[in-house]
């Protein structure tokens, strides 16, 4: 039987481990994807090795920043352990680790995708380097947004003063807050990657359409992040709502359930939204005249795709507010 103090300080180490452990998954996959496509591109045209390798390294560096966010959170968790650790701060440390680690999975993978497409594009259209690289940079950077939401949740969980919140059911709220944003961000990150990859491919094919394609990519990616934002909303509610003290298990489980609902509910729609936007961006690049109608169709399609994540959001809100 371990005493509370040991359990509490262990939780900070567990949180740090979860943050960087999960956080490393996505970035590694994304960087591998970039390097794989770079190799494929070089096999077609070995003489452009310098250009492609440089681009590959830049793309990988951006994909890695999701893992670096996770590293920062892990380091903060390991070294910022407060003097007095209560069960509540212990659970919020674990929640913070989960929020950061899980959210970095999607962003790491997603922001590696445009990098790979840019390597492929540089070999096909070397004259078009500036536009391809700009789109890659914007796409990769915007694909980091889900990880940024995860990090905001993590830092709120680490640094906020929870002394006025009752430990029961507060612990479940903090764990649920971490899971809500963290899980939901996985889908958006991957979906954003699909969109950005298609945009880079499209601009390689038709540099004339760069402006329209980049604009639609930005709109598509940001609407694709809606599911993460719903998860983030639920997390903020769980952190700030202020629950009455209740030591029963059901009171805690409904808060955990709220986090899990919006979290898992966001994964599928996040990827789906990315696919909708990827389709629209792809065809705008081929036929610029259709930008207007494609933008509207994309938004309508996204509204329907998103509906399952809205069901999950409603269930979360019901669990938090009504039950």
């Amino acid at each position, binding site marked *: 039987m371990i005493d509370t103090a040991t359990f509490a300080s262990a939780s900070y180490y567990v949180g740090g481990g979860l943050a960087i452990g999960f956080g490393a998954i996505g970035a590694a996959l994304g960087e591998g994807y970039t390097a794989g496509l770079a190799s494929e591109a070089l096999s077609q045209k070995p003489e452009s090795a310098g250009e492609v390798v440089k681009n590959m390294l830049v793309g990988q560096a951006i994909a890695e920043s999701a893992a670096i*966010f996770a590293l*920062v959170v892990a*380091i*903060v968790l390991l070294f910022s352990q407060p003097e007095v650790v209560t069960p509540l701060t212990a659970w919020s440390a674990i929640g913070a680790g989960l929020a950061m680690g899980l959210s970095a999975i999607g962003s790491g993978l997603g922001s590696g995708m445009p990098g790979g497409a840019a390597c492929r594009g540089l070999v096909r259209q070397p004259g078009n380097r500036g536009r391809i690289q700009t789109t890659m940079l*914007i796409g990769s*950077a*915007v694909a980091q*947004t889900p990880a*940024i*939401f995860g*990090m*905001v949740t993590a*830092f*709120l969980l680490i*640094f*906020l*003063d929870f002394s006025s919140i009752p430990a029961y059911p507060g612990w479940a709220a903090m764990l649920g807050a971490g899971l809500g944003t963290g899980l939901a961000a996985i889908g958006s990150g991957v979906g954003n990657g699909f969109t950005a990859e298609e945009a880079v491919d499209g601009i390689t094919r038709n540099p004339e359409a760069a402006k329209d394609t980049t*604009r639609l990519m*930005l*709109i598509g990616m*940001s*609407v694709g*992040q*809606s599911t993460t*934002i*719903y998860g*983030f*909303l639920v997390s903020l509610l769980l952190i700030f709502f202020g629950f009455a003290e209740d030591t029963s298990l059901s009171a805690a489980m409904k808060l955990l359930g709220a986090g899990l609902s919006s979290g898992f509910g966001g994964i599928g729609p996040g990827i789906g939204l990315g696919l909708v936007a990827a389709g629209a961006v792809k065809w705008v690049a081929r036929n610029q005249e259709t*930008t*207007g109608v494609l*933008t*509207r169709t994309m*938004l*309508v399609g996204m*509204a329907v795709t*998103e*509906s399952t994540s*809205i069901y999950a*959001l*409603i269930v979360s809100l019901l669990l938090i507010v009504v039950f």
Partner: protein
Amino acid sequence: MDELTHLPQITIELLGLNLVFNTETITMTWIVMGIMIVFGFLATRNISLVPNPFQVVGELIVGAFWGLTKDALDEEMARKYFPLICTLFLFLLIGNWLGTFPHLGEPTKDLNTPLGLGILGFVIAHYSGIRAKGFKAYAKEYFEPIFLMAPLNVIGEIAKVVSISFRLYGNIMGGAIIVLVVSHLVYSLILPPFLLAFFNLFIGTIQAFVFTMLTLVYISVQVK
């Protein structure tokens, strides 16, 4: 790390209501408005064929957004909504950049600012939808494809306000937190300026553009 959670507030009691003002947000909003008015004055003071630098920047931004608005709406509608769209972008851009300077903070870091602007866009989009199509056609859209979907369509519309405001808030707030935490970790050496450049200037510009474009597209979806 007190900066994270501390919001300077004044509470005024009026007619039995407690009105809470976030002083920093309000001050920063007024600073942004001041910058915009001064910029507008300098850009249009003596308009000439050989423009002064302010006029050039003004023409670039206004020209670009005129093109974007015209693409999304038709010419006549665009004339009506263009001032809103352009002002929204300039306000958000300067607001997001403001945190780069010492002692100043982004007004968009406070959820109330993005939420207010999000509700503004929502109301304008739906009002212009009713104006353009008539109330019957507007209301009918909520019962598509079958009438059972009506509650869901309404929630979907409200979710748009939530997502557009929290997207801006989360990004700007996230940037501010990262800059704060990393500066603290490295004792404010070397890294913070680069982080500020990335999160405030780059991400700030992209998010200002995205917010403006989404407001524009939501209006254009409603009126067509």
